[in-house]
């Protein structure tokens, strides 16, 4: 099975406007995420992101035909879709996944491409204050690819991930992609308070709130939380998490401190959101 290339991405975060800046910031002492910018409206952020991705969107529309390029978003859906209509030539399916997050829309994009319903998807999530968009294509020149995705729904609104549900979603990914050795699992923090309670810091290895899910994978695989979220349910944060995971594969280093080279070129992104929805994405370097 071939991976689907992530041909472009862009993010807006209080720590910076590109993945490298945010990853570099994770190597410094922990600070509040809002240290740099005051929140901006989702529409303004979406326009910013689209301007940054303008060339890639135009290239995808030219290559595949505008009607074969889709856009799937979460977060502040209507403003993002309006911005996409106004600022790009994308003319394929455009829709908003309600109560979804940035990882879930990537899973949706993955299915749309594997089903041959479209040839490229602009996917992501933007909230008031932050967000990220990624371009996923059928073929293309990219260092990082999406190898598999899976979704599982557990009991709604659990305060912590149910290990059985995590096991099911990871097993689903394995059934699609085999069991490649992983560099790390990129997981979101349950909340800033949970981060503090669990005793781990931004960019450090995740602690007890994912510890019970370790049974799914060998102990040697670290679970990393970038902890850049201000809210566990902010869809834009999860899109940023996907970008940071992809960027870490591209850089060859784990997020956070101390700097460690990736031992393997595959990263599993795991998120959970409102309603007990769990998503797993397997990202990796192009072979």
């Amino acid at each position: 099975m071939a991976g689907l290339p992530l041909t472009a991405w862009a993010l807006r975060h209080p720590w910076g406007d590109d993945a490298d800046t945010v990853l570099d910031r994770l190597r410094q002492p922990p600070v509040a995420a809002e240290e740099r910018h005051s929140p901006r409206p989702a529409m303004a952020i979406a326009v910013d992101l689209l301007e940054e991705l303008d060339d890639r969107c135009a290239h995808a529309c030219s290559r595949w035909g505008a009607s074969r390029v889709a856009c799937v978003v979460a977060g502040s859906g209507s403003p993002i879709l309006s911005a996409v209509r106004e600022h790009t030539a994308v003319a394929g399916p455009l829709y908003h996944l309600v109560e979804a997050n940035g990882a879930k829309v990537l899973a949706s994009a993955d299915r749309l491409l594997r089903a041959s319903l479209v040839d490229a998807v602009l996917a992501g999530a933007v909230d008031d204050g932050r967000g990220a968009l990624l371009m996923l294509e059928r073929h293309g020149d990219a260092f990082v690819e999406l190898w598999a995705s899976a979704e599982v729904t557990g009991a709604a609104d659990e305060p912590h991930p149910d290990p059985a549900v995590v096991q099911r979603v990871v097993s689903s990914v394995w059934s699609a992609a085999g069991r490649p050795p992983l560099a790390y699992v990129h997981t979101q923090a349950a909340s800033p308070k949970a981060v503090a309670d669990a005793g781990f810091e931004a960019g450090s290895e995740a602690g007890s709130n994912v510890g019970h899910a370790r049974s799914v994978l060998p102990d040697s695989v670290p679970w990393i939380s970038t902890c850049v979220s201000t809210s566990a349910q902010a869809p834009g944060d999860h899109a940023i998490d996907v970008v940071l995971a992809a960027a870490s594969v591209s850089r060859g280093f784990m997020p956070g401190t101390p700097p460690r080279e990736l031992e393997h070129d595959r990263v599993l992104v795991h998120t959970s959101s409102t309603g007990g929805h769990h998503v797993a994405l397997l990202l990796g370097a192009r072979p």
Partner: protein
Amino acid sequence: MTAPPRGAATIAAAWDADSGPPNVELLPRADRRGVSFSTRILAHVLGRVVAGSPEPLSSVPWVLGVGEGSVPALVPGSVLRRILAPERGLVRVDAGAATVPMTLIEALAHLVDHPAVLVAFVADATPPYHEALAAAWLLTRESRADAPLVLGPPVLRRTSSYSERAPRAEHPLASALRLARAIDVGQPTVETVSSGEPDRPGSWRIELCAAF
């Protein structure tokens, strides 16, 4: 590249104001009083699908089309979600006027991973469309079904202006109601739905055709 999937459409149900009081037997008695009307009509249609489905709805992904501009906290179904416990993922699609074709595209995409998917639509009686309605059916992979009707991917047709397609001011989910009724009686049909993009006029064509 493989051909886009088509789905066999089976076991459909629909509810609108002409259908009489919704049947909420699917809901536990303790929950019946406290739920929203949209949850009640969704329970009505899902109850019919549950009764006819060869497999429990918990074993298929759910794709739910919701009314234009739905506020997440008001989206119905949490009680139903608890009762029917979908385990394969639940997606809620909002695309304004194009919610029906976009929901169908999202549902068809699920068939690459799952043999069947539940498609449902629900809207409460809220402005500007003062009609509540609900519809649901199962989509299954064409190869494993003996259903008489198949649903292909909605196709977008651009028009030079809105006047060419004589738009009607109708409920954005009305086409879902008509599709459910057509599936229920085994009648092929074609629905044309506005893309909802004022600056780029066009319409989505949804074709429910005979399997053979």
